[in-house]
């Protein structure tokens, strides 16, 4: 298993290199540059030249790319070009933990609602509960977070006035880098965005859990377990559930990509200073190093998540061996 993970990481290195190169070239190909304007006026030519020289932007592209890569290997994500009081590491330090909290809390919400809902629907197969749960799940999958966000703001923020409708309740640094603080302010602020992102996830998970459990419940080993006289609860929770999670694990990869995408939208709607919002806002100001670094972080998350999914896979289904 360790060998498998190591090999996957090794394979990921050229992929990361290619993504870094592609993004770097794409960002540099964008017309206009970071030093075109100062305030609302055009930057004077001599000053721009000095600035470009200072950040090495006048060098040939391959020189720039490899010096960026060299810095990257030392943990230096590069300078900020417009807002020169900070560098990319500072920005990532401010935004990354927030996005991770949003993503993980939404995933937890998705699992906490989705798995039990799926189990109940499968056990009460063909009942009214099942029909309702299935319908609600399709609804949950179909409401885009683009729509759900404003609707939640309207219902819980404006009419009921229960939760604040914008910003994240706490700023980094957090304990252990990303642990959410246990303050009321944090959780009330987190409620709506996490719900906006987590609802679709929970709906998807509940559909898969239901389908997986229905499939597994007709297997022979379940009949055997019942024939041994086990209680139904033990049959479901111990024998059936683990295998029924396999289809859930298969979508974890795409799900992770969905969370990354969704967090971009949700951060925008709720004005949360996360990576997604920073990514969008930094394109306009041509922050070359920030854009490339954030794209790389996104793909590291994706690759890491997919490796974790494969490991989970092998744990769920011992027939799967990676050698």
């Amino acid at each position, binding site marked *: 298993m360790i060998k498998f993970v190591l090999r996957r990481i090794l394979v990921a290195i050229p*992929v990361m290199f290619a993504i870094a190169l592609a*993004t770097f070239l794409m960002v540099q190909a964008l*017309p206009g540059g970071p030093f075109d304007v100062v305030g609302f006026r055009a930057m004077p030519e001599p000053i721009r030249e000095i600035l470009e020289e200072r950040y090495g932007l006048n060098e040939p592209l391959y020189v720039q790319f490899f010096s960026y890569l060299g810095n990257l290997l030392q943990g230096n994500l590069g300078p900020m070009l417009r807002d020169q009081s900070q560098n990319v590491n500072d920005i990532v330090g401010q935004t990354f933990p927030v996005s991770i909290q949003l993503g993980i809390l939404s995933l937890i919400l998705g699992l906490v609602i989705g798995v039990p809902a799926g189990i109940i629907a499968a056990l009460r197969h063909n009942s009214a509960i099942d029909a309702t749960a299935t319908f609600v799940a399709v609804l949950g999958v*179909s409401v885009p977070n683009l729509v759900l966000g404003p609707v939640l703001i309207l219902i819980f923020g404006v009419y009921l006035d229960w939760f604040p409708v914008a910003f994240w309740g706490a700023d980094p640094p957090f304990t252990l880098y990303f642990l959410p603080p246990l303050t009321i302010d944090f959780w009330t602020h987190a409620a709506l965005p996490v719900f906006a992102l987590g609802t679709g996830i929970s709906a998807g998970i509940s559909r898969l859990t239901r389908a997986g459990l229905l499939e597994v419940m007709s297997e022979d080993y379940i009949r055997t377990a019942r024939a041994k006289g086990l209680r139904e609860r033990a049959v479901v929770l111990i024998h059936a559930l683990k295998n029924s999670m396999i289809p859930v694990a298969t979508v974890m990869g795409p799900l992770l990509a969905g969370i990354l995408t969704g967090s971009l939208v949700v951060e925008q709607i709720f004005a949360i200073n996360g990576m997604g919002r920073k990514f969008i806002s930094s394109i306009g100001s041509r922050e070359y190093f920030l854009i490339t670094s954030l794209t790389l972080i*996104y*793909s590291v*998350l994706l690759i890491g998540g*997919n490796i974790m999914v494969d490991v989970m896979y092998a744990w769920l289904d011992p027939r799967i061996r990676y050698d």
Partner: protein
Amino acid sequence: MSEATLPISPVNLGMESKPRSPLQNAWREFRRNQIAVFGGIFIIFVVLVAFIAPLITPYDFRTQNTAVSRSKPMTGYIVSETQAEQCHWNNTPLEWGCTIYLAGSDSLGRDLFSRVVYGTRVSISVAVIASVVSVVIGVIIGTISGYFGGWIDDVFMRIVDFLYAIPVLPIIILMQVYFQALARRNVAAGLGGYLLELNQNMGGLLFLFIAIGVLNWIGMARLARGQVLTYKNKEFVEAAESVGASHQRIIFKHLLPNIFGPLLVAETLAIPGYIFLEAILSFIGLGVNPPIPSWGSMINEGYQGVRSNAHLVLVPGIALTLLTLAFNFMGDGLRDAFDPRMRGRK
């Protein structure tokens, strides 16, 4: 299962006289699923609306009437004589000299109803073109790599590995920024210039199609490859090979008809994703060019004022939700219909 399982016999399979093709079976099964059929009908309705949008909208989607901006749904306004003259329903001037916005008006005084109706054109064309592109590319690549295997398959799998590590949305955003910057400069000549002009005439949709299409064929290709791998060692393919059928004949006559069902199901369920993607891009201002109405850009224009003018978000939001709901219902129905194991489970 709780219900008694009957032994398999022609009677309970509904095959008294003549055998049916899998496609006919699936269609019979699908028709019995009311909610899926309803989803299908709704999609046809939306497509129809997209086609006849100019006939059913009372106003042009561009016409601004700043005298009555952000009006509430179903309210009428009597405006000055000159503006009353612009008041048309289906190109017929209205007698009562007024402005009525069925769904209210947006911040520039444009009729929200007309904009939502025209918005179907963007969503439907994205749904159609993105799925055609992803199916065509995906099936060609997936079938070839699954059927012939060898180095072709190896190359394909490496590409898949690479594309799976790509964070699609950030990359599409960068591509759109690049395309739009090019479009603004409007400097390219030759083919590039032609594409730019075409894109401009399509309201920015062409580049959107390219950006969405380029990165979304991969799922279809994987599916097609897997399906081809499953079927290519089956007896009927071996039989066809043994009587000397060509590769072409085996692929088109024996393999593709068999993988049609799963592909149709997967594509139907993927379409909401394409529609979302367009909506997200338009939401952050990187989709269609204004003033062309997209539901995503309408949500963007409305969400900050959701406190006082909820309808600006709700109207396009409900339209977007209903359309994706219809695709999901239809996709679920198709999946059940094409999966023989689901028969009789209802």
